[in-house]
């Protein structure tokens, strides 16, 4: 089975026109891709739309995959770029342009504790500027190392580390703020 073939090989095969390889590759990464899209956009509907954008364009993109980076790194970059495109387009529609803006989900969660946790998450994400938010979306779930995230974002590794420190600083400030009020 193709299960034990690595991503990069599958990607190269797919790039050369191997349909089953393409399908196996996408199936393998779909769930993680969707989770990343959620972290980038902040709600299910947007995440689904973004995932669809990426799936629609993936075949063409894959032709440009040179195997110089890990496939996951490459896929993350595709996702982040697609998210930016999407936000650009959404910006013209005025509201909730840069993700984590909608609060539709809260109404469906009955458990107060969960609601509080999710509310806090939304607050935290909204407070962060978009570039920190994206950095966090890439690194938070043990998906990528700083170096890989740096590659995805097209910035230096040091910048990623600086951003993570900044995020921690801001979270701490938020926490202290909450503790004081």
């Amino acid at each position, binding site marked *: 089975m193709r299960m034990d073939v690595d991503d990069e090989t599958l990607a190269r095969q797919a790039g050369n026109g191997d349909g089953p390889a393409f399908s196996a590759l996408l199936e393998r990464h779909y769930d993680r891709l969707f989770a990343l899209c959620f972290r980038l956009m902040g709600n299910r509907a947007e995440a689904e739309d973004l995932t669809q954008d990426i799936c629609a364009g993936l075949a063409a993109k894959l032709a440009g995959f040179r195997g110089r980076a890990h496939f996951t790194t490459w896929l993350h970059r595709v996702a982040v770029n697609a998210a930016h495109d999407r936000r650009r387009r959404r910006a013209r529609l*005025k509201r909730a342009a840069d993700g984590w803006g909608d609060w539709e989900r809260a109404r469906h969660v009955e458990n107060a504790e969960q609601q509080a946790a999710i509310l806090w998450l939304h607050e935290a994400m*909204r407070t962060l500027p978009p570039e920190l938010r994206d950095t966090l979306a890439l690194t938070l779930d043990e998906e990528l190392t700083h170096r890989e995230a740096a590659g995805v974002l097209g910035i230096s590794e040091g910048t990623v580390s600086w951003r993570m420190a900044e995020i921690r600083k801001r979270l701490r400030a938020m926490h202290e703020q909450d503790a004081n009020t």
Partner: protein
Amino acid sequence: MSDNDQLEQLRKAMHAATPRPDPDAKARHLRLAEENFAAFQGTRQNARHTPERPERGAWFKKGVLTMLHALSSRGALVATTSAIVAAVGLFTLWPGGGPAPLPGVLQKPLPGPAADAGKAAETARESLAPAVTEDMPRSASVTKPSTDSAAAAPPPGPSAAPTRKMIPAATGVAPFPPEAPALQPGGNTETFANGDPHPVRIAAEEPVSTFSIDVDTASWAIVRSSLMRGKLPPPEAVRIEEMINYFPYDYPVPTAAELPFRPTVTVLQSPWNEGTQLVHLAIQGRKPALEKRPPLNLVFLIDTSGSMQGAGRLPLLKQSFRLMLSQLRPEDRVAIVTYAGSAGTVLPPTPAGARSSILAALDHLGAGGSTAGQAGLQQAYAVAEEMAGNGNVTRVLLATDGDFNIGISDPAQLKDYIAGKRRNGIYLSVLGFGRGNLDDATMQALAQNGNGTAAYIDTLAEARKVLVDQLAGTVFPIADDVKIQVEFNPAQVAEYRLIGYETRALAREDFNNDAVDAGEIGAGTSVTAIYEITPVGSPAILNDPLRYESRTSTTASESAELAFLRIRWKAPGGNESRLIETPILPGAGEANEDVRFSVAIAGFGQILKGGKYLHGWSYPQAVALANGARGDDPFGYRAEAVRLMRIAESLARQ
């Protein structure tokens, strides 16, 4: 508590919040991807006649080797990262623990969140119309491509038109972006309340015009802040009546003791159309004897969410309130409630004399967290209710950048809530700070329902105007639910048009309905409304007479009256309205400097909105008219207006 705790908490919350992909959507997306893949191979093979097919047999061995290679290099990467992390003196970032268990509720696909949001939007539109027009949650129908039809369509051939399914240009994502991709400027999410400008109406068909007064001034400050940034304001941000009412006028004050305000009517030649006249309605509130004013209870409800960071926001707000504090008297009381995520009372009701403790509380405010407007509002009202007492005036002053899209679960409910509190005698004013995500529409809706004013504060000078010079008008109501109804005499007036007040239009029958809310007049403030009328027989009449209309209206009146003015108002806190009536006669009043200046501003506002009815009358004429009507202008407001007109003129030329 260590830094990592918060990051770990965030990671866990993120885990919990991240939904599983919807199986249907997943299947759809995979199918779409495969179809596009097949289509793409088609285009490629047509373009390239010798495709390189992979060697099917060789993949296994090569694959394993590559995988092993990949594994080891990944391990190396992790090690590198740890080294870096250690080098900058931080804790291990990625605890190896598996994903936190997903709470069951979250794993279920949520039942149609988009549809619910749409429904909420619908409700909001109905309940807040016409004030809130654009403050809607994302509407799925706008952005969501119709995936079903896309998936069902046959794969496009090589020559198919570039639709969503034709991949190369569809998403246009370069694998290696030349620019730093993460530094997109945040989208501008401002929304403004406005309606279509009132059209010209035919007096014979629709003789009655009804509206609520509007004492807000926010639109002028928004126009100014746009112009000062070198941009013409978006037309929907221009509310002409608020521009006019921004300026202090010296209209005649009431003489009769029982009336808190006095209407003055002036009829003058329209500056922008020879064939029309203007009917200028001015209402001047009684100037209060300040030393006899009742004690004041103020609850500052301060938005300290993250978006309030920045010089134009929280720091300006603190300075503004400090200024205002100097206007209060020792027997007044002040409380401060903040809201950012969780609402909290920062300062319990405190006599205004205890300046140091109030100032200390103000100084300790910091920005952080998101905006939960509703919880804050509830708490502020609770505090206000505690403070309210006999003969006191109690008001909640909400200071925000207006970013209310978190925390309001149901705008209609919020509106009802505020309206209910208003009936209990607690008023709400809204002070807007900062630009970028100013939710003007919500601010308007809140202030209108709370019997309050909405003012926009962009400079300390503006804070001084709203909170010091005009404090009395901002906080002391002298008349509630002031409605104006003008009935035009079709024998004299062929057509009329109300300038501005688009968001304040009332149904004719609402004039006599005391349950219908309207604007309030504060102590010493004035309100201006201007109609443009076209006299019968004027060459400027826009609408031709109807061929089949029976011309029987001469029975109406041989009277020379142009119109009849009715004003309804309530005493503050009262339930029953009183009525003032007066005929409007041709040539009434005198077009003094105040009248002419307000007309110049009305013209300016119309130019900014496109100047449909101005017949080429534009900035130079507005500047000339305003310059000739500056009067004393002790605070320099009118000079500033002229300056802004000139800026707008040069911007419009570009």
